[in-house]
């Protein structure tokens, strides 16, 4: 590969690139590899994959456009970026679907070979956008990616029809050159990934190199760019998506709890990757059952939990609906169970591949009867690891189902993660009951399955195979203590209260809510209170407000049921509380109901995460109209 260069190198502190093409064009692969090589190079990265629910929507149509946005930076960043600085469009549909997101002055790199009349028609363009002046405010680079790729792929011996398929590697090569990415890691990755298909490997390698060299030699680009490594905490890093981190968190938690992990799951977007990941790690003693349906998935997990395994079920919205009855049973059985909901747009089938946070109230209340369930939610992709472990801690200690509310954005988004020291992970060891815990009227030692631990109110976990502890449990109401069926009115009321108190009592066993307020608790005029995946956008929006010289506080909930015990004090310490959520205001309802505060919701339900600018705008609106005229900082990283 040529090393001579006559191009300028311009230093950037960050850049947001969006790769867009047909769903079959390999954009997710291209974006992921660009991220991986950037992380490896030492940049901070954050990603936003965006793909259609259809596996292969008609080629060339807007419905079939698949995109992958990556934000790379020389400092720490919190979001995949509000708007792309660079859009790589493999065809007119990809351009049309994404160009509105690119601010004026942005760069468009288009595969000009795909721009013909038929493609314009499919994409809904009346005229060629490259020539009709509609792109005048952008820097447009027209690159014949298909033909150049076919030229080199032919040399690899692949058929012309297949040769065209390597064009995403040409694009990857070109953008790698443009942003001065090292080439070796990508070449090695191609070699590994396509090891079993020599011809494809050769074609992709040639296409990648051709793209890189095209940037180098074509007189098209006046300069290329450098985004230096970020200053990161020393340690070993990996790039991880939320679903992978969650799967690993479950394995680590089972390991730390000395329990075999059992997953009962039915495939559903965007949760299936957890099933895929866990099914790879059988040497950890992980059992995965692809069940016949969502109900069987959770049912089998409950059966496994009864037998002393760590029972887990994973799903998304529609599956949560179906599992509700079984989750209620787990509340009544008081067995540990993890219910992992990778939220997506609803109602019904909704937006399977798009993100939303609209299952909070379902997790809270979506069961008949008084059936409280603890809820935890991760904030970032890598945070899913920690939250999985926390959910397991609560489930096994309190013998209760626990909801984990992740979402499509966290599930598929990736970020660099400084690996924790496995030896420093918390000990989650739990004791099974081993002997009778009560004495009969006639003095015989007996086992009472519902005789609770005084402190945690958890009942004993006695697993089959333990002599002398044979007992029956079920969904019918049980007598406090003995666990025998009881229809006694006062006993029922007592049991309802006991189950509620047990879950409420977990508040004493979780960290206090930390508030990021520069001047100390209550000093800023506005508190932004978030939960789950809005963390990045809120933290970045808060940074932008502060860069204007204004004060704003941010607190982020991981525990949603029960709330941290200081949450009331925190929200009451502020005149105004803003609660941004990717729903119509679910947390804000809970906060208002619980604490009688005048919290205001900010909602967005477009299937995409909040942008930092939207949070900034909402905070400024709350701080007063005059704050809008404060000077926005030139380029505050989001």
């Amino acid at each position: 590969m040529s090393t001579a260069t006559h191009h300028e190198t311009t230093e950037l502190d960050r850049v947001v690139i969006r790769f867009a093409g047909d769903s079959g064009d390999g954009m997710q692969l291209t974006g992921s590899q660009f991220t991986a090589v950037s992380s490896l190079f030492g940049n901070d990265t954050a990603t936003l994959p965006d793909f259609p629910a259809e596996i292969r929507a008609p080629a060339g149509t807007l419905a079939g456009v698949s995109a992958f946005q990556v934000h790379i930076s020389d400092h720490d960043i919190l979001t995949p970026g509000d708007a792309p600085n660079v859009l790589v469009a493999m065809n007119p549909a990809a351009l049309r679907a994404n160009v509105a997101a690119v601010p004026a002055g942005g760069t468009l790199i288009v595969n000009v070979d795909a721009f013909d009349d038929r493609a314009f028609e499919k994409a809904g363009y009346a005229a060629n956008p490259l020539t009709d002046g509609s792109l005048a405010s952008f820097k447009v680079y027209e690159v014949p990616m298909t033909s150049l790729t076919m030229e080199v792929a032919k040399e690899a011996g692949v058929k012309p029809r297949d040769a065209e398929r390597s064009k995403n590697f040409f694009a990857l090569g070109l953008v790698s050159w443009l942003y001065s990415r090292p080439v070796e890691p990508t070449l090695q990755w191609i070699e590994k990934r396509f090891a079993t298909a020599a011809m494809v490997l050769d074609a992709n390698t040639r296409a990648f190199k051709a793209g890189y060299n095209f940037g180098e030699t074509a007189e098209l680009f006046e300069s290329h760019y450098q985004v230096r490594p970020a200053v990161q905490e020393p340690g070993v890093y990996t790039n991880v998506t939320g679903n992978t981190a969650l799967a690993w968190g479950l394995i680590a938690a089972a390991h730390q709890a000395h329990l075999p992990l059992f997953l009962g799951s039915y495939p559903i977007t965007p949760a299936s990757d957890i099933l895929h990941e866990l099914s790879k790690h059988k040497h950890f003693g992980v059992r995965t059952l692809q069940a016949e349906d969502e109900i069987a998935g959770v049912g089998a997990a409950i059966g496994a939990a009864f037998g002393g395994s760590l029972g887990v079920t994973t799903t998304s919205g529609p599956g949560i609906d179906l599992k509700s009855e079984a989750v209620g049973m787990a509340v009544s059985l008081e067995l540990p169970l993890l219910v992992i909901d990778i939220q997506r747009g609803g109602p019904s089938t909704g937006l399977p591949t798009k993100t939303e946070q609209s299952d909070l109230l379902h997790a809270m209340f979506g069961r008949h009867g008084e059936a409280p369930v603890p809820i935890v939610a991760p904030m970032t992709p890598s945070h899913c690891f920690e939250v999985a472990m926390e959910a397991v801690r609560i489930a096994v200690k309190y013998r209760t189902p626990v909801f984990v509310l992740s979402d499509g954005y966290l599930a598929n988004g990736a970020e660099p993660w400084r690996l924790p020291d496995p030896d420093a992970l918390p000990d989650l060891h739990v004791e099974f009951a081993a002997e009778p815990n009560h004495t009969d009227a006639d003095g015989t030692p007996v086992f009472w399955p519902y005789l609770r631990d005084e402190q945690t109110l958890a009942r004993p976990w006695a697993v089959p195979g333990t002599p002398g502890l044979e007992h029956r449990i079920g969904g019918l109401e049980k007598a406090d203590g003995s666990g025998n069926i009881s229809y006694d009115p006062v006993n029922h009321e007592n049991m309802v209260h006991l189950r509620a108190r047990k879950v409420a009592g977990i508040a004493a066993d979780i960290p206090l809510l930390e508030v990021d307020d520069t001047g100390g608790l209550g000093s800023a005029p506005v508190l932004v209170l978030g939960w789950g995946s809005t963390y990045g956008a809120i933290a970045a929006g808060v940074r932008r407000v502060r860069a204007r010289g204004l004060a704003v506080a941010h607190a982020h909930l991981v525990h949603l049921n029960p709330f941290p015990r200081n949450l009331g004090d925190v929200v009451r310490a502020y005149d105004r509380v803003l609660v941004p959520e990717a729903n119509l205001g679910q947390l804000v309802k809970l906060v208002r109901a619980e604490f009688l505060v005048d919290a205001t919701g900010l909602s967005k339900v477009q299937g995409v995460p909040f942008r930092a600018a939207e949070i900034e705008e909402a905070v400024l609106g709350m701080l007063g109209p005059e704050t809008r005229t404060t000077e926005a900082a030139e380029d505050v990283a989001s």
Partner: protein
Amino acid sequence: MTDTTIPVTTRKDWTSDQEVRWCPGCGDYSILAALQMLLPDLGVRRENTVFVSGIGCAARLPYYMSTYGMHSIHGRAPAVATGLAVTRPDLDVWVITGDGDALSIGGNHLIHALRRNVNMTILLFNNQIYGLTKGQYSPTSEQGKVTKSTPFGSLDTPFNPVSLALGAEATFVARTHDMDRKHMQEMFRRAHDHKGTGFVEIYQNCNVFNDGAFERITGRDVRADNLIPLVHGEPIRFGSEQQYGVVMGPDGRLRIAEVAEVGEEALLLHDERRDEPGLAFQLSRLARGPFEPTPIGVFRDVDRPEYGEAMNRQLLEANERRGPGDLATLLGSGGTWTVEG
């Protein structure tokens, strides 16, 4: 060395202290008694025995056993039992279910448990009616059944549970009835000893909402001429004088014939080990309903790998190939880089 001797037990040891609350005269009592009397002879331990049920009258049975048990939710017992059985191959897992529980709300779980061949014994109490909800028709009720929910007669074609199980790739399928303790115990024992899922349909009388549903074939006076015992390796023959038998006609259909007319050598030999389930399926449909001669006994008993064992073998093989799981290796498996201090 641990004591591996199975303690000697009696029916009393397998009976819980809970009062049995079925209607007086219910067929469930005789099934419960047959089971409690059989368990001491099965060579199993109480602490390793688990009864899992769904919802319905039959589903109360686990409360009456002094073993481990779970009264779960409607239709889901096979799913719960699957999770338990595959994670705890050391346990004896029984599923107690009814015609509504297993064939209506839980039909999906039943067929998938059968095709997977999970190590469990499923006892389906078939009384052709909904008892616990007070008398609506069930998926095994005869067409035209007049009940509270079908005052003008039911429209649905009923399921034949044995046919359904055979169609769902079951490896062990049997039918028995609540009037014959010895036959029930024999079927339960064989289903229990079978490796994989043992499925037993029990004709059970609901004396309150569907009394006498099976009387025309199980009544003491009529039984000999109306129940066709299937015995492996024997000609299929029945009747008070063994005067009837089952033959296959030139069109491939099974029919009942008088032995005197067709000759003993024309009778069909019962082969429960036959891999091809077609003949068992035909036998399961010999009677149009429990009002004409009906085969009972083991329809099918074949070997196929058990699901939990196969699952656990994959774990062992992974462990042998890759060594025990190591968290540090796992976390680094996606490729890492180091930021120096």
